[in-house]
């Protein structure tokens, strides 16, 4: 076990190193320049562009830029080119904003999908299964933004309460309880919207996994020995169907930092996704690269966690 952890960490550090090189190269090879050195502005003289390039180290060879960037990153000195704010602090603020959305969305997705999918599998081909399939595909195929608009218009027109932003705009200084409840309300639509898409997809996987397991001999045996159906489905079958989901669960971790650009933009939520998206548009390399690096770390941490979870779920697996 310990040797597994050790080996895995070394492997992951090597992977991370290559990821850092590749992401750095991709950003620099991509066409487009930081907006500060945009040449299509008559006010920008070549000298000024040169000065900005110097300030941003863009005049140095790529490997030097690489070293300079990661030196700054690890000493916590990277600053956004757009507003000179320290990148790590910016990311941390946005991360805290995105966190509640992520948590609520994840809880809803990773609980509801199972009963929905399992029931579909049990009553395969029945009315429930068909309508679940229909709605899943409906939700998968309707673009998220469209659904969001419909929901916003519906809620605003019928209940006359604000839904966008993290809190009611101009709420002033209410008691902490009201403030808290206001925040909770604003979480409702974006997190439910995020979750519906997730449930639609995940419940499909659950269904197909369960279908496979339900036809196994041990399920028949369990049924035959007279166990209550719930125990058969939710204990005997589910456990064995769970393996692929462990991998998937590990991979939701990077979603923490990715956020959702569309939902965040529509709901004016000051989250990670929006910041990263705007940074890409403005070619704000420090932000893009830092977000990239942090998400690479999270992906690797996610795979590590799922490896460990494998052991917990399936005692046959020895690492």
């Amino acid at each position, binding site marked *: 076990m310990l040797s597994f952890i050790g080996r895995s960490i070394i492997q992951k550090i090597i992977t991370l190193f290559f990821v850092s090189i590749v992401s750095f190269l991709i950003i620099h090879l991509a066409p487009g320049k930081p907006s500060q050195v945009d040449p299509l502005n008559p006010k920008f003289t070549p000298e000024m562009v040169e000065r*900005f390039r110097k300030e941003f180290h863009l005049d140095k060879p790529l490997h030097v830029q690489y070293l300079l960037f990661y030196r700054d990153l690890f000493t916590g000195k990277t600053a956004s080119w757009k507003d000179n704010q320290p990148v790590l602090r910016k990311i941390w603020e946005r991360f805290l904003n995105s966190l509640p959305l992520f948590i609520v969305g994840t*809880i809803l997705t990773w*609980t509801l999908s199972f009963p929905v999918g399992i029931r579909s599998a049990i009553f395969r081909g029945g009315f429930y299964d068909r309508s679940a399939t229909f709605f899943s595909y409906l939700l998968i195929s309707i673009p998220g933004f469209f659904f969001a608009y419909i929901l916003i218009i519906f809620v605003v027109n019928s209940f006359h309460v604000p839904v966008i932003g993290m809190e009611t*705009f101009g709420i002033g200084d209410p008691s902490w309880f009201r403030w808290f409840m206001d925040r909770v309300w604003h979480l409702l639509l974006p997190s439910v919207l995020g979750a519906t898409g997730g449930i639609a997809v995940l419940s499909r996987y659950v269904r197909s996994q369960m279908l496979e397991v339900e036809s196994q001999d041990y399920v028949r045996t369990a049924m035959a020995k007279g166990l209550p159906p719930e125990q058969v489905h939710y204990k005997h079958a589910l456990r064995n169907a769970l393996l692929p989901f462990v991998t998937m669960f590990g991979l939701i971790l990077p979603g923490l930092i990715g956020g959702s650009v569309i939902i965040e933009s529509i*709901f004016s939520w000051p989250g990670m996704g929006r910041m990263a998206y705007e940074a890409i548009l403005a070619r704000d390399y420090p932000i893009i690269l830092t977000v990239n690096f942090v998400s690479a770390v999270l992906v690797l941490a996610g795979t590590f966690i799922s490896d460990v979870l494998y052991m917990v779920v399936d005692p046959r697996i020895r690492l």
Partner: protein
Amino acid sequence: MTIRKVLIFTPIAVILFLLQSYFWVPTYEQQSRGNPDRLNEYITASIGDASILNPILSADSASSQINSLVFEGLIDRDEELRFRGRLATSWEVFEEAFFYINESASIPGAGTARAEEVVDFLRKAKKNNKVSDPRLKACLDNIREIGLIPPREFLVIKREKDLKNSKKEIEVKVHGRPPARVKLTLTAVDQDLFKNLTQLLGETYFTSFGGERYVSTDPPVSKEKLAAYAREFVPATEHNPILIFHLRDNVLFHDGHVFDASDVKFTFEAIMNPRNLSPRVADYEPVKAVEVIDPLTVKITYKRLYSPAIGTWGMGILPEHLLNQEALKREALRLGKDPEKFSMRQSGFNRHPIGSGPFVFQEWKSDQYIVLDHFNRYWEGPPNYKSYIYRIIPDPLTQEMEFYAGTIDNYGVQPHQVQRLKNDPTYQSFSGPSFGYTYIGYNMRREPFNDYRVRTALGMAIDVNKIIQYVLYGQAEQITGPFVKQTDYYNHGIKPLPYDPERALELLAEAGWTPNKEGWLEKDGKPFQFTLITNSGNDLRKAILTIAQDSWKQIGIDVRTDLLEWAVFIQERVDKADFDALILGWSMGIEPDLYQIWHSSQTNPYQLNFVSFKNKEADELIIKIRQEYDHDMQVEYCHRLHEIIAREQPYTFLYVSKWTAILDKRIVIKEIDDKGKVIYKKIEPTKTGNYTFYFNKWIKLPEVPTFALEG
């Protein structure tokens, strides 16, 4: 069983918890109508957040919007776009002009003359009333004073690239010993001064001066380099326009500090300081010196004639006491950073600005909102609104929803909504042309676009009115040239190209393009074929691309089209001038300076005259416009330039789009007359379409006011 229950009841509990919060949320009603403070707040929304709240560093529109409320410049523009004093009460523009005595030149009627003799000669000429040429007469009358600067010596050290090793720099000592210099003080700036003086001093008096004779270097440099140094340090003639601002007394910054001339000087120095990386350097590069004459007078001397310079003083003035060297040093030490590397760009000031404008900065939550409060001690009296709130709402539809709900006071209407919202009796609406235009540009380096008949024919084949009507829902106006349509620089006498495919075919036939058997145009067996490109992600341009392709196909031109990602489009095609024709747009300022986009010297790769428009008369006019300080003359030159560009058709000028904004009807202008009586007036846009011009006088009333019909 338990697992199933957990899986079902947890999400239900979570959702119920989320839902119950509904009972605690204030409704829109409570926020807007139910909240009496709401009448004193003006809330507006923006798609993007501000980035840096410092007028000398910001480059995006959101930051500029906030900066324009927190900071104030020396001047701004009034309803008619004329300059108007803000922090300055008045200003004067005059000129000091210099020329070196050309000892070898022979002056008509006086022979070779020494310095004193030249001065005497000019003084006599000025007194002589019998000057025949009226222009020379006017020019001499304009001279207020004639002085003489004795010869001087100078030594300058320049850093130059080493010719052998391009990475190394070497020091070049430039030594000069120029002759005496005549100084002419003029009442008004006169760009033709030296041209007129040649009538007196001889045609070649200035051109044969030969500054190289008076300059030597150590180590020696090439002839061209020496000539460049001579032009730089010993120019035969020199114009130094001077701008004196008289500042307003008793203007306060928001922290109570009194504004004075040193703040103006400081702002200028901060822009020029290379460490601050100000994007506005280009505007102030022609400034030679900023001097504080007394606390309420600043004198700005320019290196050369550059008329757009006056407008640059609309720039917000920074408080020196908060941002000077010592203040920055203290801040760096407090934050534990290296004071040597700490510049204005890193300062916390950029997120908590303090200026002297009508609004005081209060709070900024990134990507959420910025709050400003009115400044009680603003010199013009505080604005009527108590606060100004700038919300960041990236999605236009949510902006619209918030506007209907009353939590935003204005909404920028999308073109397709104009029909519906413009005449909605619940709102007041404003509209006007924007500052920018869309065009099709032709690469004039390539056949057949080097023929103006072909360019004109291509323009005539496109029905711009149909584009405006169907693609832009009528929310645009046709444009014929490169000036802002609502300024007087724009020549309204020029008719737009008519939509006339017949005439287009005739023009093409004149240029040698005739239809072949299949109906395609051909010249010497070569078909008329080219590619029209634009950037992807802009639906309007994409629509125009298709319409243009179809229109040209109808007269027998085989056009291919291509959509390219913005960065690729600019870097690979526009910058390298590798295109046949393209669709793009320019946004413009009020100043009529067209040098970068239309001057023939700007046609190299990475420069903005990428269509390679070269016209000698246009070049001269562009330079004259830049150097002319008299508005009427400028207008005259602009009209002529507009004519040339419209005739040459380097672009097919398409349209300038129109914006429409709607506003709550309860917002009105509130004024207090001499007797102290409150008068409410309807908001009227200025001639140039700016409806927020009187913003400081706006207020929201509890009920929709009724105004007497105006005759």
